[in-house]
Structure formats: C-alpha cells, structure tokens
C-alpha cells in the first residue's frame, strides 16, 4: 500500500511530544543557574541533592517500602495467578481487577478509613507498616495482571505430562510451571517495584509523620515553586527507572 508522508511525520511529532519535556528537564538539571536560561554546565543541583538529609531519608524509606512490598506482592500475586489459572474464582479475580481500575484517591481514603478505625481498638499509628501493607495490597493486582497474561500462553498439557510421569501437583508447579514462568514473574516484580516506588496519592494518605517517601518530598518541593533540585532528582529517577526498564526488556528477551 502506498504510504503517505503524513504518518511518519506525525509519529515523529508525537514521540517528540512524549520525550522532549523530560529531556529538557534532564538538560536543565545541569544548568548552573536556577532560571530557565542556560548559563552553563554545573553539577551544583546534584550536589545539593546528595547533601539533603531529608531527601536521603525519604529515598531510603521509598526503597525499603518498594523492596518489601514487591517481595510479598510478587509471591502472593504469582501464587494467586496460578490458582486462578487452574480454576477461576469470580469474586477474587473480579475484586482484584476492580482494585486496578479504582481511582487511587478512593483506594487511599478507604485505606485511611480502615486504619483509623483499627487504631481505635489497637494502639498503633500510621507509619511504614501501614504504607507497606497498602502497597502490597495494590501491587498484587499488577502482578496478577502480568503473570496471568503469561499463563494464558502456557500449555496446560505440560503439567499433565508432569503428573503423568510421577510428579505431585506441587512438584508439577515447582519443576515445570514455575521455571517457565520466571521471565513473567521478573517482569511483574519490576512493575510492582516501579508502581510502589512512584506512588504518591495512596502513600501520602496512609504514611505517618516519620515515614516520608521520595514522591512525598518531591511533591512538596514541586508545590513550593521552581526548584532546580527537583530537576536533578527527576533526572536521576528518570534514568534509574529507564535503566530498570531496559533491564527488564533484556530479561524478557532471554525466554
């Protein structure tokens, strides 16, 4: 079919629209001035970023929360996907998919309501633990999505063959299905990590006073006004996540 020039040009413009704002932000994070006029290359804002104690603590919190919730969400989500693949449970899969489309603000306030209600009877406060629980809860659905997609392309006869040759159901899962699922599980874990690390809405509602996360600090700084340190942080996050994505693609290729 004759291709017009329109599509490639249009596509290029769209890609520019998608990527240029971020590239500009990255570029200006190296600007020696804090105004949006280029005045020279400088790592000043990166230095400021590294010296910020509050930022360091928030980043640490974010990492801990993301790693812990990813760990649990991946395991729980994978097992759940497998169980649902064997035989579906409408209420469970329905609820999990519903949690995916529920607006974050609604999820956040409902969890806040739950925790406040629990804390009436139990001497606990909002803190890292409530954030982690919340993150595990919403990450499970993401893991389910990715692993389920993988399972749908799997051959059910493989587990039958394993059983036929003397493996129990657990062995069939462990020795046949699980190894084949590995790339999918890795991709799911990466997604869960990304979603958790980046979350603002839910976290801000259920975090305590002493469990600030990186997105929360970033948000406060962004709200306050133009701040080139935010550009520096953004660049680091952007490059960091970008590297993670590349890593995931590399892993996916080795299937």
């Amino acid at each position, binding site marked *: *079919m004759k*291709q*017009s020039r329109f*599509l*490639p040009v*249009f*596509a290029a413009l*769209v*890609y520019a629209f*998608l*990527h240029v*704002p*971020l590239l*500009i*932000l990255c570029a200006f994070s190296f600007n020696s001035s804090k105004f*949006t*006029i280029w005045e020279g290359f400088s790592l000043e804002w990166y230095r400021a970023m590294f010296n910020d104690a509050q930022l360091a603590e928030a980043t640490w919190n974010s990492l801990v929360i993301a790693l812990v919730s990813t760990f649990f969400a991946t*395991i*729980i989500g994978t*097992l*759940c996907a497998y*169980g649902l693949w*064997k035989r579906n449970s409408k209420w*469970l899969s329905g*609820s*999990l998919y*519903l*949690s995916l*489309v*529920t*607006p*974050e*603000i*609604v999820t956040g*306030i*409902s*969890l*806040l*309501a*739950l925790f406040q209600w629990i804390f009436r009877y139990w001497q606990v406060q909002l803190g890292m633990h409530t954030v982690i*629980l*919340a993150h*595990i*809860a919403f990450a499970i659905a993401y893991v389910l*999505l990715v692993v389920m997609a993988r399972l749908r392309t799997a051959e059910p006869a493989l587990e039958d063959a394993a059983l036929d040759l003397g493996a129990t*159901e657990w062995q069939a899962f462990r020795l046949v299905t699980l190894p084949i699922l590995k790339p999918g599980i890795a991709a799911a874990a990466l997604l869960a990590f*990304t979603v958790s690390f*980046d979350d603002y*809405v839910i976290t801000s*509602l259920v975090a305590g006073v002493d469990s600030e996360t990186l997105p929360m600090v*970033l*948000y406060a700084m*962004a*709200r306050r006004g*133009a701040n080139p340190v935010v550009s520096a942080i*953004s660049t680091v*996050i*952007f490059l960091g*996540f970008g590297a993670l*994505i590349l890593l995931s693609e590399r892993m996916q290729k080795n299937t």
Partner: protein
Amino acid sequence: MNRLRTLFLAPAAGFTVVLFLIPLSIIIGYSFLTRGVYGGVAGPWTFENYQRLFDPLYGVILWRSVVMSTAATALCLLIAFPLALFIARADARWKNIYLYLVILPFWTSFLVRTYAWMFLLRDSGLINSILLSLKIVHEPLPLLYNETAVVVGLVYGYLPFAVLPLFSNLDRLDKNLLEAAADLGATPWQTIRHIVIPLCAPGLRAAGVLVFIPCLGAYLTPDLLGGGKSIMIGNLIQNQFTTARDWPFGSAISLALMALVMILLMALLRRDGEEAL
C-alpha cells in the same frame, strides 16, 4: 489438589478482603453517616451526602471533571490512532522499538512527568523564557494553573493507555482486507475511513474507556497543573478527607465516582468481552 489451590489463593484473598473490600464497605457505610463534631463520622444515618452531590457548587466540579476527561480522551484517541497505525505498519524489527518508546516515559515516575510540564509552562518556565527572550511577548503567558494545562497533562500522562489497545487491534487486522479494498479501487484514505476505523471500533472503545477512567479519577495532574481553579473530583475527595474533614461527604463522592467507573467498565465488557485487557 484443591487444598493446594486454596493455599495459593488464600494470601491474595486475605489482602483483597481486608485491604480492599472491607475498606470499601467502610466507605459505603460512612457515605450514609454524618460529619462528626471533630471530624470523623457520627450518627445519624442519612441520604444527605448524596443529595449534596447535586448542589450546583459541587455540580460544577463534577461537570468540569467530565468535560476535561472527555476532552483529554478525545485528544488521546486522535493522537493515538495515527501513531498506532504507524507502528502497526512498521517492519517487524522496528515495531517493538516503537512500542517501547511509547511505554518508556510512562514507566518512569508520574510525578516527574507532571513536574516536567510545570517546568515548561510556569511563568518562569522554559516556554515563557523563550517567548520573553525572543520578545514575542512582554509578560509571561499564564500557561499553567488552568484547565488547558490539566488537559495537556492528562493527555501526556495517559496517551500510552490509548496507544496500546489501538495498536493491538490494528496489528491484528487482516492485511488481506486492506489489499482487497485497494484492489477494488479504494484510495488509502477511503480504506482507512470505511474499513480500518470500523474494524478498529473495539480498540477505540477500549482505548477510550482506559483513558477516560483514570482521567476522571485524576488527582496529581489537576493538583499540580490546575491550581485552585480547576480542581476535579479526585481533588474534591482528597479535600474532604483532609482539610474539610467531612468524611461522609467525601465517601459519597468516592462512591459516585466508583459507580460511574463501574458502569463504564460493565458497558465495555458487555460489548467487547474480556479482551479489554
């Protein structure tokens, strides 16, 4: 065998019930209660919160949210369709790269991407700096803190949600149909209008719903890019649970939003089945 399966499903079921279904039920309950004296909730049971939804003060916000979401969705579809078409027609070895380039920004921080637009649009932002230094304007243009900025932010944020289902639909189109159309004398534009677009209707519906729903429930984008004047439903809810301390009303709004979301989803599932994901 069933024991194993129950064991596998138990943790997820536990989390879903305790940390999703129960909180939702609590919110449903709160929506029928009254605001407590010091915040929180108290009796008596009432429908008042739902009645307040129709108050013009809040009606404006609801209406604005719907309008902005519709605008963002329409723009997303208009932009995503040609892009998806482009990718679907590309050589096999480029397809993945093109898709990857669409998804890549999405997988990095949402906050960062929203901030990027603040950086560009604010009075001291890059666009105004350029315009001012080129003497095209003498005062900074108020590009930020209005509804347009929010819509731009929404489109920027959710464009990949539109591209992926459209691409998936277009990629699966039988190339033979296109060749048959050309064979029978259709121009490329006619082929697109009469064959591609109708066949792509499920993809368009899925893309539309997948963009509209998050737009409707958006919080960060209107909060950072909209300033105080263009708040959406999400901001209203947050406001009720923090500053205004009117949890019952906030709950009622949340449920109204959920109801709208679920209606849209049911409509889509009924029409197109489970391939939406």
